[in-house]
């Protein structure tokens, strides 16, 4: 039986971890992919900020280009904090406002059409977000649309399937257009694109296929969110980055990742995923999170359910017949 859970089981040796990531990133980008440097989209959040700092560590600041990619509904602090990090790291950075492109493809219009079916009085002056609800059984969850009128009044209604899917599909344009911009600069410079998911996001499928899920190298996909915060502090990133709570920065109303997807704060999700990955019994997770065993069992079931339902996001295009191709050097 593997080690039991302890409050220190997520502690890492930051220097050793950084050396390990350095070596692997150099192997992957320079030798296997044969690219000269890396592109990193910087949201001002802890994941992309740590990835940028790791990239500078691995390749030097001359081989890292930061991109700030705000849109009309980005939190004002996102691009601002991304710029602070880029300046602290001493890397070149560019701002590309993707709002006009999102307007052109109908991102906001298509989303608002779906919202108006649920709230006919909704206008573009209102704000909105989706929250997860239910959860009495893994997978038996549903979604609510929360809107805020211009005078600050909040209203919420359960989302029918068609409108839920249309809102998600429309907002996914944000991640996909950002990625298109990242690859424009990667192609122009012969660079690789860094993907910034942490282990929770990667394992549980919290990304958009062809959007933030698309990348050439993902340096922190093996690290729990708690460990990413440890690296952020070790790398002396700004306090606003090290102390920020994870958000989606996708909807016009502020939205935490826990209220949209995970259902638990990241500290607890980390513990749950660690215990699940180390085959710890339900009673041990219940004790670690100070929850009833029935609740801990539901968390395990939800982890497995999310893995099943998002497996297709990880799947590359499937072929009718296998086609032999040369492997990457050193792969």
């Amino acid at each position, binding site marked *: 039986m593997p080690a039991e859970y302890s409050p220190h089981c997520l502690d890492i040796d930051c220097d050793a971890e950084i050396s390990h990531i350095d070596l692997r990133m150099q192997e992957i980008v320079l030798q296997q992919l044969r690219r000269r440097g890396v592109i990193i989209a910087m949201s001002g959040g802890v994941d992309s900020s740590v990835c940028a700092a790791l990239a500078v560590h691995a390749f030097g600041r001359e081989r890292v280009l930061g991109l700030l990619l705000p849109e009309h509904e980005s939190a004002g602090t996102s691009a601002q904090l991304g710029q602070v990090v880029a300046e602290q790291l001493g890397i070149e950075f560019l701002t590309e406002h993707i709002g006009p492109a999102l307007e052109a493809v109908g991102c906001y219009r298509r989303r608002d059409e779906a919202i108006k079916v649920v709230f006919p009085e909704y206008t573009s002056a209102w704000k909105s977000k989706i929250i997860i*609800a*239910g959860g*009495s*059984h*893994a*997978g*038996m*969850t*549903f*979604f609510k649309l929360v809107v805020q009128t211009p005078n600050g009044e909040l209203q919420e209604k*359960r*989302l*029918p*399937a*068609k409108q*839920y*899917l249309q809102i998600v599909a429309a907002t996914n344009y944000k991640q996909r257009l950002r990625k298109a911009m990242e690859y424009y600069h990667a192609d122009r410079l012969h660079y690789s694109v860094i993907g910034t998911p942490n282990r929770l996001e990667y394992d549980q499928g919290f990304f958009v296929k062809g959007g933030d899920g698309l990348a050439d190298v993902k340096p922190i996909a093996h690290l729990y969110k708690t460990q990413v915060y440890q690296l952020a502090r070790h790398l002396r990133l700004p306090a606003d980055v090290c102390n920020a709570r994870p958000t989606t920065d996708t909807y016009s109303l502020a939205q935490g990742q826990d209220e949209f997807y995970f259902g638990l704060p990241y500290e607890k999700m980390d513990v749950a995923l660690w215990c699940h990955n180390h085959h710890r019994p339900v009673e041990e997770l219940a004790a670690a999170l100070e929850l009833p065993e029935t609740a801990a069992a539901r968390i395990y079931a939800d982890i497995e*359910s999310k893995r*099943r*339902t998002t497996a297709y996001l990880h799947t590359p295009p499937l072929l009718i017949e296998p086609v032999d191709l040369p492997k990457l050097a050193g792969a």
Partner: protein
Amino acid sequence: MSDIRQQLRSYIEENFIVSASASLTDSDSLLDKGVVDSTGFIELITYLEERFAIEVRDDEMIPENLDSIDNLTTYVDRKLQAAATA
């Protein structure tokens, strides 16, 4: 009730692409069998409300009502009877 059961089975088999080899019994859990995921679940709710003209309340979204063809049949029948006597 058998008509409700048959309608539910047809909808689930067609909409969630249940193959004949999956051999879904009326008592099987739709979630545990991987027939319905979280998006499928809200599609199922929308179907129930539109097809049977019932309102599924938030507090009724529990496995005991919705997680098998047996449970769905009993739940829909109960809601329709309640509406008829209201």
